[in-house]
């Protein structure tokens, strides 16, 4: 496997670890009056035992992150793509899950401390609403800035659909449709920002109004930027998978896409958080409600009294769903499904890579099997055959392209677009011409004998 691809994958995935570390470390800084997902009275924020618990958490988190820091570099000792994916994807999953182990431990420790010190703030079934701030903030985000992004994102799908649909392009359509759906999702979230609950940090409505506006402006800007970034990436990805740009452009665009999304999301979160901290500190009469009972381990929100499906996240950044609402349950199930697909994908690639491609001749046809029967070439369909000692350069359009397997539709230099079912490491190769186009396979002894028998004039 190409070392540059390994470096690219590493550069793309490795930032997950420092980001997790940075975000969870930041949970020890009071967000309003919430530390490690636990709501505390403002005077308790200076408690020495609380500070000691935060220090212990930082050390435990540091150890967990250190443990995860080296395994990804094992990719430099692996040759096969599936093994590289196995290392990186399983590491990714662990890098997301493991830092939450110390977080959960110290979250529970702080909860116990809160109970011990009687830091609960009365009835937790109370909801505070700032009537003045709410009345002044009754404004929806405008639709027009996102419309061009939606059109740009829809263009590749529309082009493919109008240019002529065939089975071959199904995965390209799926690519375009998925990325369009992501843009639509960003657009929906952009609109939902203004429906999020008003921030309440003080008795004085002015403070609440300013903070709510700052949060909404920052997050509206983020979702708008994300929709545009995704729209542009959709076009670049489409140009890449349809062979209109070189592979390097796709790699560069993917790296830039990741950096741009991360940069804008962190910028939105920390601009809001800093302002929240400043305003809460400046407020003469800070105010808060204790909603800890609705937060499972400080991470998952479950509040049957709240009709909102989306709320500001307590840990990390952005928003989270209310698991008591049907929309929240569906979203969480989908997110879990995506997370579970992370360990499944490398196993599937492993099966693709290590299952040998079988090309056999029966009485009347050549049958190609790889995991299941993937092609059958009937003798009467064959118009002509060409034997190649070497495989010409080929670029994958749809299918699998590995060092030991080419399976799917490829653009082959000097031949155009056709089907390839072969192991590039096993010459010679056969180009079989049929009325539907050409198919390239390995020229095994069994197949050569079959063709010599069935095709007049063919001699290996």
């Amino acid at each position, binding site marked *: 496997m190409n070392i540059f691809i390994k470096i690219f994958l590493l550069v793309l995935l490795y930032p997950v670890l420092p980001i997790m570390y940075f975000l969870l470390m930041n949970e020890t800084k009071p967000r309003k009056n919430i530390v490690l997902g636990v709501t505390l009275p403002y005077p308790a924020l200076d408690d020495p035992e609380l500070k000691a618990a935060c220090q212990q958490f930082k050390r435990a988190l540091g150890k967990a992150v250190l443990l995860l820091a080296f395994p990804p570099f094992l990719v430099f000792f692996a040759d096969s793509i599936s093994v590289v994916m196995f290392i990186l994807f399983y590491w990714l999953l662990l890098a997301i899950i493991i830092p939450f182990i110390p977080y959960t431990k110290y979250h529970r420790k702080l909860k116990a401390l809160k109970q011990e010190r009687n830091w609960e703030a009365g009835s937790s079934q109370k909801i505070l*609403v700032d009537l003045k701030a709410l009345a002044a903030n009754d404004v929806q985000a405008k639709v027009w800035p996102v419309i061009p992004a939606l059109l740009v994102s829809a263009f590749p799908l529309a082009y493919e659909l109008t240019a002529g649909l065939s089975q071959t392009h199904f995965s390209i359509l799926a690519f375009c449709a998925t990325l369009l759906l992501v843009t639509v999702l960003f657009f929906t979230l952009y609109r939902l920002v203004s429906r999020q609950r008003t921030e309440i940090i003080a008795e004085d409505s002015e403070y609440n109004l300013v903070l709510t506006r700052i949060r909404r402006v920052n997050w509206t800007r983020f979702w708008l930027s994300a929709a545009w970034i995704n729209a542009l990436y959709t076009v670049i990805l489409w140009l890449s998978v349809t062979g209109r740009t070189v592979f390097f452009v796709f790699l560069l665009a993917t790296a830039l896409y990741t950096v741009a999304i991360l940069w804008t999301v962190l910028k939105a979160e920390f601009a809001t958080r800093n302002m929240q901290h400043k305003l809460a500190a400046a407020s003469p009469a800070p105010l808060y409600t204790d909603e800890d009972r609705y937060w499972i381990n400080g991470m998952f929100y479950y509040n049957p009294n709240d009709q909102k499906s989306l709320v500001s996240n307590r840990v990390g950044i952005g928003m989270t769903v209310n698991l008591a609402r049907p929309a929240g349950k569906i979203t969480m199930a989908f997110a879990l499904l995506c997370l579970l697909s992370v360990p499944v994908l490398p196993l599937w690639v492993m099966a693709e890579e290590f299952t040998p491609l079988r090309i056999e001749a029966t009485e009347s046809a050549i049958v190609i099997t790889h995991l299941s029967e993937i092609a059958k070439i009937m003798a009467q369909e064959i118009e002509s055959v060409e034997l190649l000692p070497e495989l010409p350069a080929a670029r994958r359009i749809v299918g699998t392209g590995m060092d030991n397997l080419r399976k799917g539709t490829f653009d082959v230099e000097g031949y155009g677009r056709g089907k390839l079912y072969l192991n590039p490491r096993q010459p010679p190769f056969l180009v079989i011409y049929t009325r539907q186009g050409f198919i390239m396979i390995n020229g095994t002894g069994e197949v050569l004998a079959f063709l010599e028998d069935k095709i007049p004039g063919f001699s290996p």
Partner: protein
Amino acid sequence: MILSLDFSSETPIYLQIRNQVLLAIAGGKLKPGEKLPAIRTLANEAGVNMMTVNKAYQLLKEEGIISIDRRSGAFVSLSRDSKADVLARLSKELELIVSEAKVKGISKAEMRELFNRLLEGMEEEK
């Protein structure tokens, strides 16, 4: 003005909204002409049904405390009901409260003291 809705309270939510808006106006936290959030917005924010907020607003409207306009929404607007009408309505409500106090064994002096304290509180806030 902060509305504090307690879901564990025996007082219905619509009445909590009505009572707190009334107290805020009496305490000068909400002034005549000040805009109130739209029914949908408040219901969405508080996580309650729109009917609940609508019921509270209708009650406040009937009592002449707010006005509801289809275009500009709800706003504080003390009605021009005659003083005699308001006094008659309050008298009925107070009669019920006084009766309840009597049943519960609260003396006239205690009631008078309570009433005086509330009136003093209102004057201070204003």
